């Protein structure tokens, strides 16, 4: 029996047969792994609760003929507790998992950078100290950088002339100068451009000082940029709750 261990985040669970599940994990060393967890839907299962979405776990697998099988699970971080108790965090976290699943590529191709981004974003959501929308957008921008599609924010995406610029073109690759600006480009505010840059570089002080209009516009540009590069639309993105209920009720 060929055993191996790895640490990973549970991206997705699917029912298999009567009581089993197929668990998709994004792991530190092995990349994306799909493995069977037997008997986990029975309420008496030893580790059912540890192979739920958002769980950050240390797993022992054995290599199976088609799918690997999970034999042991230890919790590293119980992120779900801080995520499922808040609907905005939950929907943002779901979008992180789906994006990660799409960008991870083939199974068992190491993607350490992406794994670090996912674990970091879930940790931030679970801690609940930052606006879930900002956490999600920062993750999406950096995940796109990992995939090689990061939008240009300061220099022009086409000719490279340094900004600040005032137009943004999804098809053109991000910020564009007046000379390169394709028709139909968006005209985001200077604040939106600085929020994009702050999220990309992890400048949280600047990101958290941003206003709600810049946050909304940034989310729109990030989502449009991501969808433009993905073949199939993300299911989770339209279901992400972008603002707190109190805020929605006030407007």
């Amino acid at each position, binding site marked *: 029996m060929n055993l191996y261990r790895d640490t990973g985040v549970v991206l997705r669970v699917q029912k298999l*047969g009567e009581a089993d599940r197929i668990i998709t994990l994004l792991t530190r060393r092995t990349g994306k792994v799909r493995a069977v967890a037997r008997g986990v839907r029975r*309420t008496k299962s030893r580790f*059912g609760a540890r192979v739920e979405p958002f769980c950050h776990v240390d797993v022992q697998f054995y290599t199976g003929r088609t799918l690997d099988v999970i034999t042991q699970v230890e919790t590293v971080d119980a992120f779900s507790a801080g995520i499922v108790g808040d609907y905005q965090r939950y929907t943002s976290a*779901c979008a992180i998992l789906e994006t990660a699943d799409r960008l991870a590529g083939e199974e068992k191709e190491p993607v350490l950078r992406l794994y670090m981004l996912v674990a970091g974003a879930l940790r931030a959501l679970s801690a609940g100290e930052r606006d879930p929308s900002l956490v999600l957008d920062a993750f999406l921008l950096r995940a796109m950088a990992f995939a090689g599609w990061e939008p240009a924010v300061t220099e022009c995406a086409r000719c490279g002339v340094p900004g600040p610029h005032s137009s943004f073109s999804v098809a053109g690759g991000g910020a564009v100068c007046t000379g390169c600006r394709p028709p139909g480009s968006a005209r985001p505010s200077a604040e939106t451009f600085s929020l994009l840059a702050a999220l990309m570089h992890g400048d949280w002080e600047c990101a958290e000082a941003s206003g709600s209009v810049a946050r909304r516009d940034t989310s729109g540009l990030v989502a449009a940029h991501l969808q433009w590069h993905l073949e199939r639309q993300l299911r989770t993105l339209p*279901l992400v709750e972008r603002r707190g209920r109190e805020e929605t009720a006030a407007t």
Partner: protein
Amino acid sequence: MYEGPVQDLIEELGRLPGVGPKSAQRIAFHLLGSDPADVARLQDALQRVKDGVVFCDVCGNVSEQERCRICRDARRDPASVCVVEEPKDVLAIERTREFKGRYHVLGGALDPLSGIGPDQLRIRELLTRIGEQEVTEVIIATDPNTEGEATATYLVRMLRDFPGLTVTRLASGLPMGGDLEFADELTLGRAFSGRRTV
């Protein structure tokens, strides 16, 4: 691999939940060897489930009429509504004999990864029902897993503003990660009597 109709049947059976390739084969050969009248009865039952079963107008449970048996039963307390994900959860809770109120079947859990948001479930119907009828208690009995917990979170937030409404959640004893249908009667019964206000 078998040929023609037998292989077709094995493939169809293999698509059913919980039926692996070996069981599909076993069932197929069982049917092949059984009395034509037995097969006809099965065929008839399958047909009727698609033609005859509707969903209850009030609670969304499977029913043979516009209103299901529980919603028609005057002895069931209309002030207490238990919210579950699926019709099979109604059966599981009925088996405990702990609950004398009525149900509301959501039709699933909030699961953005499968494209399911509030609009895909019978949440609006629940809110209308609470607004229009004399409901004083809502018991949230979604599955004790991630999607079920998130659904409970969302419902609690939506129900918070109804004046005079008590919202409870099934108590522990139900470990995270499981499906409600697998809980034994004792555990589920205890979870019911020990439900807590949220």
